[in-house]
């Protein structure tokens, strides 16, 4: 009793409210994150290991996983590159309509994903504004895997922009100016001074956009075409399996996605730590 009182008092001395806030954090994380994830992980155990393996190694499931992860990675890379340019423009220059442009970035956040999907598929369908222009050159976007990429780029952009923006704002211009006085060209200053400084933020932005892309369902199913082996994303396959009452099969794919995302996010985090140290 006394020991406990002393230790809690000393804990309070170091971090006010430590016991209470840690307790709450544990409780909150358990209820909101851990329990649902545990339910997901336990579900496939209704299957034998053999069945679990059959469920996830089916060619159709592998194709869907490849499409989801591959496209999400590509979309994250594209969003990071172009997000960086957008942020550069928004932070470094002043021009009319800047505020409006800044507000526009958040739109993919706020739009219900189904609305985004319908809007994109209307635009990119062979009868749509963009789709009909591309059709002249024989390029099809809607109802192909390219449609998945377009949707993922759309929903991922705000994640990279909003991660990079405050960091570039903080960075200031003095380092670039110093580089210039030392004889660096503009390109050298950006590539060898600004980008390395921004590396951790670039990686965080990419990770967020990637995670969002992998998990996205609502907007993609409208534009993807959803053909097995071709343009079917893994989350759709999960829904399809559920609608066939194959709960364990659906959970198996879910677990694989969870594990793969976790490993990839962990790797990105490690890279980020490494980049921060190098700085």
């Amino acid at each position, binding site marked *: 009793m006394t020991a406990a009182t002393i230790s809690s008092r000393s804990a309070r001395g170091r971090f006010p409210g430590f016991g209470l806030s840690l307790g709450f954090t544990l409780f909150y994380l358990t209820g909101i994150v851990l329990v649902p994830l545990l339910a997901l992980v336990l579900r496939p155990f209704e299957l034998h290991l053999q069945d679990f393996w059959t469920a996830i190694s*089916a*060619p*159709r499931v592998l194709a869907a996983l490849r499409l989801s992860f591959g496209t999400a990675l590509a979309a994250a890379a594209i969003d990071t590159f172009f997000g960086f340019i957008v942020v550069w423009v928004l932070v470094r220059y002043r021009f009319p309509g800047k505020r409006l442009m800044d507000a526009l970035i958040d739109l993919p956040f706020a739009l219900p994903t189904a609305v985004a999907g319908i809007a994109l*598929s*209307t635009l990119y*369908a*062979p*009868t749509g504004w963009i789709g009909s222009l591309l059709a002249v050159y024989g390029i099809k976007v*809607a*109802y192909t895997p390219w449609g998945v990429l377009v949707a993922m780029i759309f929903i991922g952009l705000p994640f990279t922009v909003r991660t990079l923006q405050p960091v570039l704002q903080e960075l200031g211009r003095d380092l670039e100016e110093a580089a210039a006085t030392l004889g660096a060209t503009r390109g050298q200053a950006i590539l060898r001074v600004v980008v390395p400084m921004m590396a951790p933020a670039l990686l965080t932005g990419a990770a967020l956009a990637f995670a969002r892309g992998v998990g996205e369902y609502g907007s993609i*199913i409208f534009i993807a*075409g*959803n*053909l*097995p*082996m071709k343009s079917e994303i893994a989350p759709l396959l999960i*829904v*399809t*399996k*559920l*609608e*066939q*009452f*194959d709960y364990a*099969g659906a959970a198996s794919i879910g677990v694989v996605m969870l594990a793969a995302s976790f490993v990839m996010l962990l790797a990105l985090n490690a890279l980020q730590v490494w980049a921060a140290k190098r700085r």
Partner: protein
Amino acid sequence: MRRILFLAAAALAFAATAAGAAELKLLNVSYDPTRELYKDLGDAFSKQWKARTGETLTLSTSNGGSGAQARAVIDGLQADVVTLALAADIDAISAKAGLLPADWQKRLPQNSTPYTSTIVFLVRKGNPKKIKDWSDLVKPGIEVITPNPKTSGGARWAYLAAWSFAQKTPGGNVDKAKAFVGALYRNVPVLDSGARGSTVTFTKRGLGDVLLDWENEAHLALKESPGKYEIVYPSRSILAEPPVALVDKNIDRHNNRKVAEAFVNYLYTPEAQEIQARDFYRPRNPAILAKYKATFPNIPLASINTDFGGWAKAQQTHFADGGVFDKIYQPGK
């Protein structure tokens, strides 16, 4: 003072919900294209019920892909009545959740299906690609729009109709039927998850040359945009029987068996059959079907029971994981 007002408001709200609980309610969980049908039937039935018993009935309908709806009921959606696209989905509710007995389909007349429907082709005005029959759908360059049979009931009927056409063609057999549906689905550029999704892809997105559709959906599309589409009846199709059933366990919980039974029986009355015919569903009543025979051309129709050995078998052979439908999309086949 504000506190008292608040308490009074809360008490009022509570009283209102308590009164609401006593009110008569019925939830019908249905498949995708029946929005208009069950609105019309529900209005007519509520009116009749009010005249007969003096009770006000709130009949609500939930619509969605047939498989998704069945899953929702299994997972706890409080359906009193289910009206789904095919028997297999109601079988699943019985088998997985035990909410109704396994022999549910014998409890109401005519396989528990008050109306039937079939699968027809919807093509663009003037039929520019000259699509007349199933054999035209596998030609190169024809784009066919149909939902995913794994999730859509209508799509499963369409798939089986195509299969039966290939099998009944002179010289047809199981292997030829497999090759035929394979070729057909290779002409499908988009697989939506439900019938309404495919209708939108075909009508609003302008994709595809032909939509494989419920007869009732096709007529509705004609009615909504006159002069843009035409219906083509193939040389043969399938008798689609979308059944209705009472969900016993939920009814007993809600204490509304009397009105639920009255509703499903009402669907067989001449008044209801007339409404079904007007909403483009084929009524069972021969006299009313004869009256609307211009809307419902008589073509040979395959039967799920005699031609496919019932839904349980068809589901297992064609649509289960690793079944015939999955093989279509396996590489190198």
